[in-house]
Structures are given as C-alpha cells and as structure tokens.
C-alpha cells in the first residue's frame, strides 16, 4: 500500500546534491520525485527512485547516511480543492502531516502527492474510508 522513500543527510555545501545525483546516475537509477528540507547547515534529501534497494546500497557504499522510509502516495484530483480535501480530512481526525511533496502528473485530471503522516496507519485508514486511492510503491515507480 505504501511507497518506499530514500532519505539522505547532506551538509549544506556546494556540490553535495550533485554527488548524490551522480551516484544514482552511475547506477542507472532514475529519480522520480525529490524534496529537500534544509536548514542553514544541513538538509534532508527525500527521493522516490526507480529502485530503492539498489539506491540505498549504492549510496551507503559511497559513505552517505541513508534511511528508507515508508510514505503514502495519494491520488489527488488535479483541480482546485484537491489537496484541501486531504488536509481537511487529516485535520478532522487529528493526524499530523510531517512533510509532503509532489510527484509527476501521470494523467490529466490526476495528481499524486507524497505524504508522511503521523501516525501513518491511522492516516491510511482514514484515506481508505474516504475512498481515496493510494498508489502502491511498485506502481508508483512504474508510472
């Protein structure tokens, strides 16, 4: 039901992001979605990639600190109010959104948002109850 995300720790220095991209490129891994949460000193790079397992190993081997996290890829109607529906839903059941970012738009009328909820299980239940569609990991990277 959930998708795999790779999180990487980066210092906020020139060239670090490029290094990560280079490692992935050299291994033939494609970045499908990306988000960087940064402070003045460091950042956490979050990636949805074509092969999470391979990316994890390759980055760890080159010395990066990497963590794999489960995230929810939620289908959102690509129209005004699409995102609001999800945010209101989470609000109403008291679930926190840790972070979110967008995925490529696969079809006209549909968008996909990547979410990390807290707590995750309750969020999934709430979404399912509302008939919202989650895109499972394998389907996501195949888009």
């Amino acid at each position: 039901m959930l998708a795999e995300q790779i999180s990487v720790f980066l210092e906020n220095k020139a060239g670090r992001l490029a290094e990560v991209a280079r490692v992935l490129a050299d291994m033939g891994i494609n970045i499908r979605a990306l988000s960087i949460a940064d402070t003045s000193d460091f950042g956490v790079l979050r990636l949805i990639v074509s092969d999470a397992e391979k990316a994890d190993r390759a980055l760890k081997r080159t010395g990066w600190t990497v963590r794999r996290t489960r995230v929810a890829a939620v289908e959102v109607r690509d129209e005004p109010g699409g995102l609001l529906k999800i945010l209101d839903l989470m609000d109403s059941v008291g679930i926190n959104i840790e972070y979110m970012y967008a995925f490529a738009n696969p079809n006209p009328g549909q968008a996909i948002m990547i979410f990390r909820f807290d707590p995750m299980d309750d969020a999934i239940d709430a979404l399912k109850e509302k008939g919202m569609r989650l895109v499972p990991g394998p389907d996501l990277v195949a888009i």
Partner: protein
Amino acid sequence: MTTPDTRDWEFGDPEERAQYQLEKLQATVNRAHNTVPFYRDRFLDSKTEPSHVETLEDLRRVPFTERRHLAENYPYGLFAVPLRDIVRIHTAPGTTGTPSVSGYTANDLALWRRVVARALIAARMTDHDILQILLDPGLANWGRDYKDGAETLGASVIPLTSLPLEKQIMILSDYKTSFLVTSVSGAISLVEGLYNSGVQPGQLALKTLILVGEPVSLDTRANLEEKLHINTWVHFGLSEMPGPSMAFECEAHDGLHISEDHFYPEIIDPESGEPVSPGESGELVLTALSAGAFPFLRFRTGDRVRLNTQACSCGRTLCRMEWLPDRTDDTVVIRGVKIHQEQVFSYIERTLGFAPMECRLAAGRRGSSLGLEVWIGVDDHVFSDEVKELEQVRDSVAKVLRHDLGVPVRVRLKEKTVSYPKKEKWIMDPEDYR
C-alpha cells in the same frame, strides 16, 4: 589554625623566603597527610612520609595531585577542615563529567584577597580606578576573586554580569571604566564590538586591560594595545583552586611573578615527572603553602612554562615564569576556560543517551576563539528523516554544553564521509575545513 601572614614577601630576601617556604611546606604536607584520607593514602602508596620532606628539594618525593583526583574525590574529599569552617565553596568544570570543588575558610579568603590585590597593585591599580569584569560564565569564580581583590584596594568594581556585549560596551563607555579584566578572546570580541557600535576607543576612560586564562602572543598584545589605546597586563591562575593572578606581570612585562610565598612552583618533565634543569621549560606544578581548607600538594597544572629566578627590574624577588603557548595536557583553553575533551564527550553522551560514533571538537585559533565547536557525524544512529529531530539533537547538545561549560558553543551536524584529523586530537582552525 594558622593566621594570615603579615609580612609581605614580594620584595623580600630570597634566602629568608626559602626558609619561610620550607616551614610552610612542612606544615602543609603534615596537615594534608593527617587530615585528608586521599593524601594519607597517596603517601602510603608511594612509601613516603611527611618527615621525609626536610628541604624544599625533598618535595619531589611527594606524589603528584592531578585534575582527575578532584573528580574522584567529589565533592568534599580533599577538604582539610570540617565543613562548618568552610565559608566558600567553588565549583569549576572538571576533566570528566564531575566538577572540581574547592573550599575556603575565612582566613583563606582574606589571604586570597590580598594575593589578588598584590597582582592588581603591580598593574598600577589604585582606589581611583573603576574595574569592570568581562568574563564568560565558566570563569565566574575568577570574577568573584577579582571583585574581592579590587575592593580590598578600594577600587570601584563593576562585577561580572551576564549582560550581552553591547550592554557591556555601554557600561565601559558611560561608567568610565579604567581597568578591564577579560580573556584574550573576550578582548578580541570587544574590539570588534566597539567597532560595530561606533564607540571610539579614544573616547573611553579605559587605560589597562588585564588578560587572563591563556598565554597571549606579543603580536596579539601589540594589536590590542594599538586598537584600544591601552596597556595590557597578563595574569596566570587556576580554575580549580584559589584562582586568577597566582602569577602576575609587573611593569617590566618580562614574565609573570609567581606568588611563591603562597604557591610553591616546580617545573617537571611531563613524561618522566622529574624536575627539569634550571631554565628549561616543562609542566608547572604548584603546591599550596598557605591554604587552610584545600592544601593541594604538587598539583600538575598542564601549563608549560620556563622559570626565571634572576632579579627583576621592578625590585620584586618573586621568581618569574614565562608562560608558553603549548600545554602539556590535551586540554584546550577557550575564552580562558579549560575544556577537556573527555568531559565534553561525557556531557554529549548523557544528553543524547548514546555516544555518537563520530564526534570532533574544534576551537578557533588560539587567542581568537569565539567558542567551542562540536562536530557530530550523522550516522545511522543519529540520523532522522525529520529535520526537527535533527535540530533537536543539535540544539539539546548545544544547550547542555553552553550551560555546563560556560562558554559559547556551536554544534554542527556533519556528513560522516568527510575525513577529519584523528578522533583524539582537537581540530584547531575549523575554518580550514569548511
């Protein structure tokens, strides 16, 4: 209970003083042995007795006291008098997580005030002067000692406060401060602060800067003197016991006179523990001659000095020490406060609940340090997917260290891949690694 001495040995005949020192030394050694179990055990272990100290040279037969012994005997294990006779208890950061505690009787305080006053008089302070004390919280004990010593002289004292630099500058300017006690780093920050605030040094009533906490190069002194239009004077002291100005400059500015009538100096080879030849440099070892509550014997300071027993042009016969820049231990002095690596790591482990695999300590160039930098390598244990948790790691460590060490602290989270100098060594000049 000994009463404070009335005869002043500053300008006294060295031979007469040596006899006086020996009497005081024997009394101290006996007291320490008889009243402090720690010292009695040390004597037993080394098969020495107080009666073996028949000359000043015989002191070398007595075992050393090290900083770790203060932590091991926390809090009152080294006191030689009952607690009810102790009127002041000072805490200083130790080498491990346990602080160093020292105590003073009323007589000790009265004596110590005079020792500080002696150093201030040598710096030409009079009762017309206004002294401002600008030290980091880690040197709060010294702040109290300078206040007491200056009050004894009748000078007007603006005691140590935790006001920010801009307010300190306002006081410096408005209150017509003539003497300022600060660390070398504090002085450098002050020069920058004055420049930023637009106050002209020429407008200040400041005429003397007393620099404490670490040795300072001639270049740095000349620079400060030029920028601030003042004279600089250097004082040497310890944070663990009595305090600042155990050694002090006179107008010759050619070494620091050690108040050896109260603190008997020896210079040893730090590796072998043997006394060095006259004129050679080595680790300064100090023995208290006058202490009632805290008679420390052969305390290894970790400071590297060279002794000069020749007559000084100022007329004082107290021997002088040349304070050398490298220490003999692996302590780093930051803004005058001694920071021990082991102590910092223990605080970090206590805060995080684990010891980070990669953790380095860094300090800026000697004499210009803005504070302690802690570099924590983000490995799997430290890492979190959420920025706020990483910030929590960074901020909780900084807060604890700032509070416990009393110096500014900056924590940086670093990638673990970058290679740094070996773990045991401090990183000096972290700017080079950015």
